[in-house]
């Protein structure tokens, strides 16, 4: 599996740990919420980046006090038609101000990629060898936004009432090169 992030494929630097697997000596690890709750003390003390994998029915709002220890949250799209993770992403970004990586895994269609980015998901896991051109193209298919979301795109409503047409500004979600890619 490869990770599409910031407009390019990147190697996956995270190791997913099952609930009963022993803690490896080093490296970034992703654990379930159950394991985090069980081993929180050990994990907090282990001085390494920690990622959390959320099930679709686990609300991020329960994590308000723990997110500061997380560098990554993985959310799931078990089927393309299951859109719960879109709300999880928005709660993580908008409500809880999570600044780390939000990674989508599962059945990720290029035609959903723009929605994901708009909801604050900044990385998606794709099968190795999958061409990414379609995903990148999907981000350029629209230039008009009808609702505020977890990104910096300026809505048509704001533009109608005098706000400048720009995507510049402090972004919690994207780096400048990606913002440039989204520019009008």
């Amino acid at each position, binding site marked *: 599996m490869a990770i599409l992030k910031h407009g390019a494929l990147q190697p996956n630097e995270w190791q997913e740990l099952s609930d009963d697997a022993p803690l490896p000596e080093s490296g970034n690890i992703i654990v379930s919420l159950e394991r985090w709750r069980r081993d929180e003390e050990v994990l907090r003390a282990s001085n390494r980046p920690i990622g959390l994998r959320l099930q679709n029915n686990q609300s991020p709002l329960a994590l308000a006090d723990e997110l500061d220890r997380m560098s990554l949250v993985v959310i799931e799209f078990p089927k393309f038609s299951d859109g719960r993770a879109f709300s999880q992403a928005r709660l993580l970004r908008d409500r809880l101000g999570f600044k780390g990586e939000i990674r989508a895994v599962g059945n990720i269609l290029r035609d959903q990629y723009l929605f994901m980015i708009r909801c604050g998901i900044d990385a998606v896991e794709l099968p190795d060898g999958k061409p990414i051109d379609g995903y990148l193209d999907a981000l350029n*298919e629209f230039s008009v936004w*009808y609702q505020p979301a977890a990104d910096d795109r300026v809505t*048509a409503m704001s533009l109608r009432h005098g706000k400048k047409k720009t995507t510049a500004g402090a972004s919690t979600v994207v780096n400048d090169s990606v913002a440039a890619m989204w520019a009008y």
Partner: protein
Amino acid sequence: MYRYDEFDATFVRERVRQFRGQVERRLAGEITEDQFRPLRLQNGVYLQLHAYMLRVAIPYGTLSSRQLRKLGYIARRYDRGFGHFTTRQNIQYNWPQLDEIPAILDHLAEVEMHAIQTSGNCIRNVTADHYAGVAVDEIEDPRVYAEIIRQWSTLHPEFAFLPRKFKIAVTGAPTDRAAIRVHDIGLRMLKNESDEVGFEVWVGGGLGRTPVVGVPIRSFLPKQHLLSYLESILRVYNQLGRRDNLYKARIKILVTATGTEEFTRLVEEEWQSIKDSALTLPQEEIDRIQTYFAPPAYESLPDWQPEFEAARKANPEFGRWVQSNVKPHKVPGYAIVDVSLKPEGGAPGDASGDQMDIVADLADEYSFGEIRVTHHQNLVLANVRKQDLFALWQRLSASKMATANVGFITDMIACPGLDYCNLANARSIPVAQRISRHFSDPKRIADIGELRLNISGCINACGHHHVGHIGILGVDKQGEEFYQITLGGSSRDDASVGKIVGPSFSTEDVVGAIETIVDTYLDKRASSDERFIDTYRRIGIDPFKESLYGNSKARRPAAE
């Protein structure tokens, strides 16, 4: 009416370009039908029994004459000369070719129309009172808010893959003509003690397999918070709505399962966090959209029009049409005209391309160039001078669109049924046609009076049979079409779900059964002013059972 600005026009063009690419990928075999399905659905393209079907959005049912002419053109050029107006104030074409659909969408974009979110598990085309802006009892024009909701919901990134479809209706008047209580969200405008206008919010209504009348969860929502409140409801639903069973995925099931109180608490809690966010509606945006819906340049006319009054007395046929198809207007000297798409022997809601052209011409001549589509599958010319009614009636009559039956038994809602739909168990249109031929005497149907008869070809209830005063549901019994009858439904302020009267009827017997029900009503009604639904509510279902099944059978269990 609303006109696209540069943003809307650009957006719709971009959407067509995107869909054209998706169709090309499908035709080239780059994506499978499975992968294509969600993409085409969110652009209104279904795969039906015989062909693809394209459902075009008519936001809150309002059209310009130019748009209606374009719909007529598409019917002739890309379909078999017809279009079918639906209960969501949309229009469906039943015979387009997939490779031509992008071209159709281009034509639509030319007249500021599209097919976005007319299907799929997303927020669907928003509906509103078809008498918006002209009804005597209106507080404010609901289309202003329906348009605001349309924009907010368009390609909403968080709510494009909901557990199930999601329908919102808005009414600006105390009288509910938009069936808000049978929508996922229903909004009713009202004034609070300080004379501010806001919304009463209803949630969890819906038809389908499990018909439910919605519940009010907020008695007054200030306008500026409209979008944040909707977003809160949708966010709760998107996270908690069931996804394990297609038939239990609508928000009504969630509201019923969590209980109204707990559901309301969840929504309010979410809302507290976002009510003052970027979703707050600025007054200047409300003002901007309101200017599009400003009243047309009405003439100052006396309400009493002697020539019109004389004509309705002199010509009983015209008089009957005025009685049933013409409604009072808020401006003196004007009237609202319902254009019936329910001629004797016709398919309810169907109009030919030529009929669309004629209505567009009549709208230009008599009604400021604007047309409405009703959720009862008729059209409306909302601003007609009373002095023009006679001429208009003659023109409509010549094109078979002046059947004097609006609100009567032959003003049926019917889904396309097994003639087109791959979900249906039974045909709907032939039954509707037979009923309309059976009740073809205009004097008799006027005497029967207001009677809502709705027909669905399957349990998914696209024909709204549960909320018909009389509902007919097509069922399949060992490969044969049967029809189950319900009584006592309503989609108005007194919303209720009909009750099954007894064992179902064969295709041969169903029209006779309707006749028996009508006769029973005529026999039992307290006076000729007592409507069918009122008689039913007064005397209950038993007298109807008795006349349908006889005394002995009446005690058989109602449900099958």
